[in-house]
């Protein structure tokens, strides 16, 4: 190794100089163009979102202001000013808890297996591609599957058009999302941590449980909650499996018939009377508050676990 002496180095540089045309002003112009374009994209989406929110609140707020408590605790009714979304709210809570109970362990389990245990061969690749594709299948397809499988075929167990059937259908729908989210969270854990664990004589499970999970759990939880917030707004698959739109009783068990918030809203929107449209807007506000709360929880959990780590 010889160090080049500085004179030849300088000379080289000056002869190279002619090959460079910095053209700074031209490059900065492109900077401005792109910055403006991205700013416009952000601005446009924020404006659209704001218009949407304002119009919904504008339409629905009077109903909430006049009788907030009644709106939450009344059953549906033929008279718009007496109609509430109690059965839909309770149904949504039941369905979401059941969805979480099924989808969380299975989705996280599958994600852990694929990411940490499975060897890389054509079979796991095939499964991987399929799961990614399943995440993009239209939800109505899941509804048709749920109708055939849970409502008809497994009726003795699920009780037909029940909370259980609906929850299982939605669980299937969000399973791919949870699996993909779990895998991403696990992949973000640096491999050096796993190596450190293995080098200390830990088994694979000990490495995963003691070292990988604590780091990955905020990501896994965030992914799961975002998947659940997708499920909470789904209407089509539940209508397909035959959730009712008018229910004036509360579910007693998982085999009860049910309705959920988006179905109730859909039902109100399709009524001719203006009063029901106001109810629909008020229902949308409630649904959005629930959604925001779930997303807030996701962020809270992520921050909480990250601080501890």
């Amino acid at each position, binding site marked *: *190794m010889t160090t080049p002496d500085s004179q030849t180095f300088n000379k080289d540089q000056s002869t190279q100089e002619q090959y460079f045309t910095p053209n700074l002003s031209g490059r900065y112009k492109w900077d401005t163009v792109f910055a403006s374009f991205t700013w416009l994209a952000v601005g446009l989406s924020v404006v659209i979102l704001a218009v949407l929110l304002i119009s919904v609140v504008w339409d629905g707020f009077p109903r909430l202001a006049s009788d907030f408590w009644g709106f939450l605790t009344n059953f549906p009714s033929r008279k718009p000013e007496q109609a509430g979304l109690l059965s839909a709210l309770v149904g949504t809570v039941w369905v979401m808890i059941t969805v979480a109970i099924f989808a969380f362990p299975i989705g996280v389990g599958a994600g852990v297996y694929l990411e940490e245990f499975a*060897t*890389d061969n054509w079979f796991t690749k095939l499964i991987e591609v399929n799961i990614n594709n399943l995440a993009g299948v239209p939800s109505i397809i899941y509804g048709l599957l749920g109708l055939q499988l849970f409502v008809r075929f497994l009726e003795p167990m699920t009780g037909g058009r029940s909370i259980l059937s609906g929850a299982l259908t939605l669980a299937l729908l969000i399973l791919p999302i949870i699996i993909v989210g779990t895998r991403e969270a696990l992949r973000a854990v*640096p491999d*050096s*941590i*796993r*190596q*450190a*664990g*293995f*080098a*200390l*004589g*830990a*088994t694979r499970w*000990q490495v995963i449980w*003691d*070292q990988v999970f*604590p*780091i990955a759990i905020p990501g896994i939880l965030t992914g799961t909650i975002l998947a659940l917030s997708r499920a909470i707004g789904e209407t089509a698959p539940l209508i397909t499996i035959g959730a009712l739109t008018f229910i004036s009783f509360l579910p007693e068990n998982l085999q009860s018939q049910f309705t959920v918030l988006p179905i109730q809203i859909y039902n109100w929107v399709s009524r001719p009377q203006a009063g029901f449209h106001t109810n629909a807007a008020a229902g949308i506000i409630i649904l959005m508050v629930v959604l925001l709360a779930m997303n807030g929880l996701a962020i809270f959990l992520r921050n909480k676990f990250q601080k501890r*780590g």
Partner: protein
Amino acid sequence: MTQVSSSTELVTEAVLRAQGVKVYYGTNLAVRDVTLDIPFNKVVAFIGPSGCGKSTILRCFNRMNDLVASARVEGKITFHGRDLYASNIDPVETRRRIGMVFQKPNPFPKSIFENIAFGARINGYKGDMNELVEDSLRRAALWDEVKDQLQESGLALSGGQQQRLCIARAIAIAPEVILMDEPCSALDPISTLKVEELIQELKQQYTIVIVTHNMQQASRVSDLTAFYNAEATEGGNKVGYLVEYDRTEVIFQNPTQQATQEYVSGRFG
């Protein structure tokens, strides 16, 4: 063309012995025909240009290569005379007895205490955990610096302290051999010196294999040095092989191979 000088004369008792070891990644041969003995309570340095398979051979000794799906080890490696790759040898148990320190400090994102307690706990340590943590940190020459912050994150330490924490973590589970893969390459000169002193200290109790790109380091800390080199094959791949293995003075002052001579004097390549 491989001339490995007979190492039997140097050896008191071989803890690890590699005989004709070849490692493949997929169908690519990465290192071939490595035969060497790692004697008891000695420091052995692995040196050689990048990509010649030093880390690969090192990982064979504690079966970390098992974790690389494409890796395949041929030949024989024995640990106290027993075939390390025999079906009745458990890699998890092997890794407790043959510890490893990595190039980049990789403490767990947990407290200093937990970093050390983890290995002990999973291996069913029955003794007093506080004592073990203190003892390991003392032997890693880190105790005085961290004794008041055992509950703080291991990541809050400086790079050099982190590396000593990793060494403390490795010795906490009482291994016989410690494999170190360029343990100082991410450290500043002062931390490097500390780790080197530590290695001298640890030599009393442990057998150490250290990979290093730092010639001074190899000559300072090691008793024996193995020089690896790589050659291109017809297929265009590079295959590593062991060129020369001898006492460190011999390798640095009077090597038998010209390539070794060139490499240790910095006139290589």
